[in-house]
């Protein structure tokens, strides 16, 4: 640390930072626009000017831009200097010249960085009286709204979109005071991260188009800390509510997980909770029922004969545990195919028994050599892709270092680094969006991807089994990959369940372990398909096939399905037959689906917004989300339904669970892996009262005056220190319970500065979440020895691999109103060479026979698919029950093709 003097006060600052960063970290209010902790400095807006003095005798000083000036021992600056103060107010005056001053009708109003900075500089009255430039706005799709007249030309949008996130279809056009930030023509923004423009834009140019449809000011939102449920990464979010409906999702900074950015599925997927398919009251034989009728029936069917339960990888630990307790651990089954449970178990075993640890996303970003094995990261775990995109900047940073260009001097770094990129190798069944920054790509069938992985491991450690029969080209690639991984300081291997291949996962582990053995601190990042996949697997449920067996064998009278559409877990024909063997089917879920439609009793289960619970992400980090919606409706969290049902049945195994903390304590006591769960967030009694509503929350006494003029008592929250009210205790909320980022003078999302131990660093009370999985210290692990044979294309048969779509492959977000407009149509992807052998052309229909089902699908040509491999968009109805990869047969629509294959 260096001692610097700010307005003559000695302060400690990090010499690796610039003065703006240091001043903000030290708590000074120094206004800025173009700088962002994740984007660095470019010196464009000139807003952070301070006076710098050569030494203590220098009384004249000169204006410098704090963001462009490094911290150095003895640096003397003044923020309060009159000349600097006037300059900063004048910059705001300039920025405001063309600004429409339309705050009252602007969606950003009340959480606008431009408003905050304007007030901060003291620029109050308008002198400029001449014309303003105006623009035509663009249609940018259903997620992001465009209002260019408000633009202050800070450049942040294009810097984030292009330079940081790798997007190409947003750019800066024209010049002078009329730079236009937009697309070359109207159209949906192509980046999976476009929603971050809403937060990165300091004013209302880019705003949340989904919020606009049901708009509420930030100050009128009731908010709670939440966790994204749309993939396995567990990005931290802030959910906002008003009038009983969910209004929007904002990023909730967690340095270790999502940092400053979310993907569009995570930001806009929340609308599923307001979808027309939403189940808002109990259904008894498809008729609306009251809560007491529902519980009465639930209690009755629970008492009747054998009861089994099927859990869910998208339900919380608490909900799954409540079901497990209700039916007993031997009758608690995984809500996923055996194969998927097996994959999760392998990954958990690898991360617990092997020497390589799972990387946090922050660690993934700071890796300096990465191998992706079998994953389409952008579509499966989008924010990981955004992080990996930064990882290729790690290795070339030494070029800048050599010229003493500090890392934060963003454009200078980019100019000297140019196209140099650190090693990133992508081996996947088809081309992915990260390929544009990859050193080398390799496209092959899952077995061949595993073989590549095992061969890389062998090349790093010759004691691992050798892979025979590799081409010389592949040998060269393998040598290149292993050399880069061995040469790295922080190598990372990324893999996961996307290929549904145990061998691919084992091969990834093999490489990491070989690197560990060679003394390199290699980490592993696995993707998991759903938000609580690891949580479910850690509960060690019985395999789903066993549930099927018991239904077919003995007479199961009642099956309880927890937050799970079983028709996505097996082909529809099998599932229908199976469910007909159950006397009573009870389903707890959020949206109407094939499973709820088949059930006798449907209980409206709270989504993440109506529930409290814990999810274990793909890093193995347990994180808690908290209820944001008023609980006084029929919708309640699954664990409450299950507990109330068991009480109604007269069981007493859950009766004592009055609160969330009771349940968590019980879970921690019963399952060893969950021993640390009570530490994920402070218990209700351990934290002071925390308001979900901001100080300026309006209409508290008037919102429901049309129903009753008596102000209702705020609903009680037995589960957490968070209150459905504006009243807070005197203490600051701990990071895991922070319902929103807001600080005096900092109304926008950038108020997060005030919640971090240093700007861009960990949150003050630590980044939320507790890692449940750590590698064992024992050295008893063994290399894997099962190497699959080379994939051979069979004539007349294709291996259908799953193709992932950020919008479409995930079950819930598909029903969000905005995202629903962006879903792909079902298709089958073929290599053009093979398509021509079949006589199939792009856009034409073709018959696909797979796993006993027959589909007619549109042909999409993808030259990147390996020979003998075809692709199917996974998770997309009507294909969502097809368990991929699987071999298929194809035939033109005119030809005969039965579900069993060509005749």
């Amino acid at each position, binding site marked *: 640390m260096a001692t610097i003097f700010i307005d003559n006060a000695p302060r400690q600052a990090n010499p690796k930072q610039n003065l703006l960063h240091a001043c903000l970290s030290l708590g000074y209010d120094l206004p800025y626009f173009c700088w962002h902790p994740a984007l660095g400095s470019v010196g*464009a807006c000139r807003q952070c000017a301070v006076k710098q003095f050569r030494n203590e005798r220098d009384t004249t000083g000169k*204006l410098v831009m704090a963001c462009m000036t490094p911290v150095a021992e003895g640096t003397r600056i003044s923020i309060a200097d009159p000349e600097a103060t006037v300059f900063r107010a*004048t910059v705001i005056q*300039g920025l405001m*010249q063309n600004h429409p001053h339309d705050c009252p009708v602007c969606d950003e109003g009340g959480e606008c960085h431009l408003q905050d900075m304007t007030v901060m500089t003291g620029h109050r009255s308008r002198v400029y009286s001449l014309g303003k430039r105006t623009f035509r706005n663009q249609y940018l799709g259903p997620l992001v709204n465009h209002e260019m007249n408000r633009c202050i030309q800070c450049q942040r949008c294009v810097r984030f979109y292009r330079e940081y996130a790798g997007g190409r279809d947003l750019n800066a056009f024209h010049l*002078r005071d009329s730079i236009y930030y937009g697309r070359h023509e109207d159209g949906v923004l192509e980046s999976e991260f476009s929603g971050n423009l809403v937060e990165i834009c300091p004013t209302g140019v880019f705003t949340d188009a989904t919020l606009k449809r049901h708009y509420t000011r930030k100050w009128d939102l009731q908010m709670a800390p939440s966790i994204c449920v749309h993939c396995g990464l567990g990005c931290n979010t802030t959910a906002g509510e008003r009038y009983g409906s969910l209004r929007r999702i904002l990023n909730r900074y967690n340095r270790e997980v999502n940092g400053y950015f979310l993907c569009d599925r995570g930001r806009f997927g929340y609308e599923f909770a307001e979808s027309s398919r939403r189940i808002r009251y109990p259904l008894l034989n498809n008729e609306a029922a009251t809560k007491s009728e529902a519980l009465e029936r639930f209690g009755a069917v629970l008492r009747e004969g054998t009861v089994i339960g099927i859990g869910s990888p998208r339900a919380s630990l608490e909900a799954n545990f409540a079901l497990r307790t209700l039916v007993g651990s031997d009758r608690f089954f995984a809500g996923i195919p055996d194969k998927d449970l097996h994959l999760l178990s392998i990954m958990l075993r690898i991360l617990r028994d092997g020497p390589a640890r799972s990387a946090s996303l922050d660690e993934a970003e700071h890796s300096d050599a990465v191998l992706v094995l079998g994953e389409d990261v952008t579509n499966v775990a989008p924010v990981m892709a955004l992080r990996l995109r930064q990882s290729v900047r790690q290795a070339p940073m030494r070029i800048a270092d050599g010229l003493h260009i500090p890392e934060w001097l963003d454009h*200078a770094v980019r100019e*000297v680094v140019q196209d140099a990129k650190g090693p990133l190798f992508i081996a996947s069944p088809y081309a992915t969006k990260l390929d544009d920054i990859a050193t080398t790509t390799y496209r092959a069938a899952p077995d061949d991807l595993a073989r590549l992985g095992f061969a890389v491991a062998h090349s790093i450690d010759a004691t691992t089994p050798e892979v025979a029969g590799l081409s010389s080209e592949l040998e060269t690639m393998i040598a290149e990959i292993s050399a880069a991984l061995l040469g790295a300081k922080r190598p990372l291997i990324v893999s996961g369940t996307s290929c549904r291949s145990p061998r691919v996962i084992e091969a990834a582990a093999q490489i990491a372990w070989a690197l560990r053995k060679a003394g390199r601190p290699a980490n592993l990042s696995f993707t998991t398909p759903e938000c609580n996949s690891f949580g479910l697997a850690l509960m060690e449920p019985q395999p789903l096939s066993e549930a099927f067996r018991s239904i077919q064998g003995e007479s199961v009278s009642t099956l309880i399905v927890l937050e799970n559409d079983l028709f996505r877990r097996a082909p529809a024909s099998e599932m229908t037959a199976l469910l007909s063997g159950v006397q009573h089917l009870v389903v707890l879920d959020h949206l109407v689906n094939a499973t709820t439609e088949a059930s006798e009793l449907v209980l409206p289960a709270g989504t993440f917004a109506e529930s409290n619970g814990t999810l274990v992400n793909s890093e193995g980090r347990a994180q808690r989300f908290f209820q944001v919606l008023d609980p006084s409706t029929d919708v309640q969290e699954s664990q409450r339904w299950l507990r109330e049902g068991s009480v109604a049945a007269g069981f007493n195994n859950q009766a004592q669970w009055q609160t969330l903390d009771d349940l968590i304590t019980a879970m921690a006591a019963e399952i060893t892996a969950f021993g640390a769960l009570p530490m994920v967030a402070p218990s209700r009694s351990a934290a002071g009262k925390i308001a979900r509503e901001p100080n300026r929350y309006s209409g508290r006494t008037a919102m429901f005056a049309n129903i009753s003029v008596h102000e209702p008592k705020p609903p009680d929250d037995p589960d957490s220190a968070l209150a459905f009210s504006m009243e807070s205790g005197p203490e600051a909320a701990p990071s895991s319970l922070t319902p929103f980022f807001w600080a005096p003078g900092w109304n926008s999302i950038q108020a997060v500065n005030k919640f971090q131990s240093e700007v861009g660093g960990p949150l003050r009370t630590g980044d939320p979440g507790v890692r449940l999985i750590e590698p064992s210290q024992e050295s008893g692990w063994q290399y894997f020895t099962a190497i699959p044979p080379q994939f051979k294309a069979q004539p007349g048969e294709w291996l259908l691999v799953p193709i992932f779509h950020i919008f479409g492959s995930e079950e819930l977000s598909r029903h969000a109103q905005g995202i629903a407009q962006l879903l792909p149509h079902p298709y089958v992807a073929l290599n053009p060479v093979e398509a021509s052998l079949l006589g199939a052309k792009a856009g034409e229909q073709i018959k696909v026979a797979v796993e006993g089902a027959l589909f007619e699908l549109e042909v999409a040509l993808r030259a990147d698919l390996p020979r003998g491999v075809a692709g199917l968009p996974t998770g997309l109805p009507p294909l969502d029950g097809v368990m991929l990869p699987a071999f298929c047969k194809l035939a033109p629509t005119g030809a005969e093709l039965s579900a069993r294959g060509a005749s």
Partner: protein
Amino acid sequence: MEKPLTGNFRADKEAVSLAEYERAGGYQGLRTALHMAPADVTELVKKSNLRGRGGAGFPTGMKWSFVPMGKDAPHPKYLVANADEMEPGTFKDRALMERDPHQLIEGMIVSAYAIDADIGYIFLRGEYERSYERLARAIAEAEARNYLGHNILGSGYSLILHLHMSAGRYICGEETALLNALEGKRAHPRTKPPFPQVSGLWGKPTIVQNVETLCNVHHIVNKGPEWFHGLSKTEDGGTKIYGVSGKVKRPGLWELPMGTPMREILEDHAGGMREGLRFRGVLPGGASTDFLVEEHLDTPMDYGNVQKAGSRLGTGTMVVLDDQTCPVGMVWNLEHFFAQESCGWCTPCWSGLAWTEKILFAMEQGKGSTRDLDTLAFQTKFLAPGNTFCAFAPGAVEPLQSALKYFADDFRRHIDEQRCPWRQ
């Protein structure tokens, strides 16, 4: 008087051919240089005190000495001729390129040799089509003679020279914006430091030099720094191509000793004001320099003396204001140009110039107010060096700040009479 830069110009304004150029001693400087160590060439240029002719006047040899040399130096290194001559009132580089293209090419090869550059670019103003044709031909000729290309004249030194025509915009004349444009990026200036000498084109060491500067280099190598000093009337070495535009009798360009007094250029060479017009002021070095007036006419036109008088030598091409032209209108015209050409990167520039331009326009329309004068004066301070990202805006307000001083009465009349007194 010796005129190394323009001495070979043909009276018919055609380009000096390669044969003519060689006959007049062309490419001798290159041959001499190739027998010297690169560092010795730089040393000669340093001794000559050749200062940049593009406007800033930075010592050329010193600039070159920042380029990393030797075995470990990054390659390719680049030499870029800044031929984006877009300063209003400036047309000296155009003459050099159209009429003696080989002179620039030879100057570039010698300069490139001095910094061990591998690739050269001529970044040419988009409208200079004739220069483009003549340079393209001259480059082809030079390549054919092995003055350019691989293993130049058997020396072991190689240089590839590209001619690049700009897509337009004044800011491309700013050396780092030029580099961005050359890389196909938006032409906004780059952060300095790092300077282009260290991290320039495509992140590699790069020297960007004005055309006129480069044209001097091989002459210095040929004839020595003492000769170069002897050309000048002041401590800044060499000759200077001075230009005069405006309502003088004979607008044009003249190569004269550095430090020739302004009066001599205006009266002896440009022939003084046209009949019936009186001199009111002059922008001595192009549109982005401060006005000088009658009292400054005896100022020697070199870097130091013009600065002492309160302006800058700039490009040395003068724009003359007469008494029948409205100074407010002229300044509006200039600020309109600069406001249009602001790259939009930094707030003071894009906001300040737009505001300034609009006020001046309103004044010309008879809608000025006293408060506007305060705003104008304030903006000239706001757009001071250091406050903005690059030197563009500080230069842009130089004619305004001096006009407010020297032509205060004219501004006052616009406001008091609510009209432009020069308009009928």
